[in-house]
């Protein structure tokens, strides 16, 4: 079973995936969709997103979503780290709405992954990201297959 299959079929696995990252858990970020080389996440509205606060939260959401897309492109769980992240903010974030992110892994080889992601509030694109991730051989993966609940 590949990571995207495991995450797609088991809601508890998706829950554990997000819960394994303390900042994602603190913001109540949820992994909502897992598919081959693709992932979607949801960040519920909270007061910390008001005004300029939304940008930082979007960086966390899109970095997390990009990481999940890398996971969903792998043959098995492996350790990886963000090498670079570029954020673009085409529109301000309307108050009161959850933010939804979709990420797609564009390239994966034995050493690096390139990922693109977009965040929307409703139908409005509020942020785009490009991320490069480095696979880290010899390091324990952050996410592992757990027992099915």
């Amino acid at each position, binding site marked *: 079973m590949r990571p995207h299959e495991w995450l797609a079929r088991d809601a508890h696995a998706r829950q554990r995936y997000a819960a394994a*990252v303390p900042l994602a858990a603190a913001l109540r970020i949820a992994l909502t969709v897992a598919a081959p080389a693709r992932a979607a996440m949801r960040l519920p509205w909270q007061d910390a997103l008001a005004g300029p606060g939304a940008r930082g939260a979007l960086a966390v959401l899109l*970095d997390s979503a990009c990481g999940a897309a890398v996971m969903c492109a792998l043959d098995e769980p492996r350790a990886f780290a963000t090498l670079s992240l570029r954020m673009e903010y085409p529109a301000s974030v309307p108050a009161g709405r959850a933010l939804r992110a979709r990420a797609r892994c564009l390239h994966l080889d034995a050493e690096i992954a390139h990922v693109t992601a977009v965040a929307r509030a409703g139908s409005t694109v509020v942020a785009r990201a490009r991320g490069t991730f480095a696979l880290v051989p010899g390091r324990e993966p952050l996410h592992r297959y757990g027992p099915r609940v």
Partner: protein
Amino acid sequence: MARVSEGALARARAALAGDPFAALLGIVMEEGGEDALECVLPMRAHVVGNPHLRAVHGGALAALIETAGIVLLAARGVAVARVADSTVDYLRPAVGEAFRARAQAVRLGRRVANVAVRVWSDAPERPVAAGHVNYLLRAP
């Protein structure tokens, strides 16, 4: 040693206080030596991205970098209308007790500012992240 003026400090504090996500992360402002302000992200459990390494989340460092630029510009009396884009390179695992961001204006124009930010934990010459941010400025 040249100190940051009281007016500049007050403007910078107000800019930081206006960002509720910076507050959630726990970012504070400190005078970092000669005529310089630093934004500091203390290591706390909720900002961790990788609990195996106890490393700060990459998105939190991106937020720290964008915030450090806004604080620097505010200290200079320049108000940011919006952030156009930011680019962050992650240079080392972000482990340590606190992460200090020092911002430097590469170009401060009338409409656009480009700010470079370096983040380190134990020593400035060992940065954990470096970034640059393009800000659109509010007309004076």
